């Protein structure tokens, strides 16, 4: 009974964080700010959901697999964020150079 309540609380907190990440994606003015909102808030929300689900699993193997999934998503989001930020910076610099030349 206590596990069910804790799972519901953690999952709702995770949902709130992911929704906040999407709100940041829609409302922030710049590519790099949106990257911040998406990477940090989304992965934290996923971590809370994984925590809530880990409380419900029956074996240690399931818990380890869930945490492993979360770590892999963390690594994937980090790599994607770095690549997108680097190319976005290059786009920004080219845009400024064109604006400065014209």
């Amino acid at each position, binding site marked *: 009974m206590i596990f*069910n309540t804790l799972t*519901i609380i953690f*999952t*709702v907190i*995770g*949902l709130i964080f*992911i*929704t906040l*990440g*999407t709100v940041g*994606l*829609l409302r922030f003015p710049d*590519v790099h700010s*949106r*990257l911040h909102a*998406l*990477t940090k808030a*989304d*992965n934290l*929300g*996923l971590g809370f*959901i*994984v925590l809530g*689900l880990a409380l*419900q699993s029956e074996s240690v193997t*399931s818990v380890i*697999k*869930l945490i*492993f*999934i979360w770590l*892999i*998503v963390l*690594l*994937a*989001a980090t*790599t*994607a*964020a770095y*690549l*997108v*930020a680097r*190319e*976005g910076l*290059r*786009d920004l610099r*080219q845009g400024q150079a064109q604006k400065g030349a014209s």
Partner: protein
Amino acid sequence: MELFYLVAATLLLINVMVGFIRIVRGPTAADRMLSAQLFGTSGVAILLLLAQGMQVDAFRDVALVLAILAVVAVVAFVRRVWRPLAAE
């Protein structure tokens, strides 16, 4: 309890659909790739919630594969499509 998981997965799906607005509006290609990243992470969350809600343990493996494929998609897009486009 299963109903809670299904409702949470539906809310996450609505979240992703709202994130599609950034794909339509985003001025640069980076914004559109960010929405793909949102779709990947939210897809993993939806699959994990459905795995618990429908008591199908195989969905966890699907979530693992989706997480890995999401980074492959972003890397492929950046290296193969975006950088040659920006270089010309």
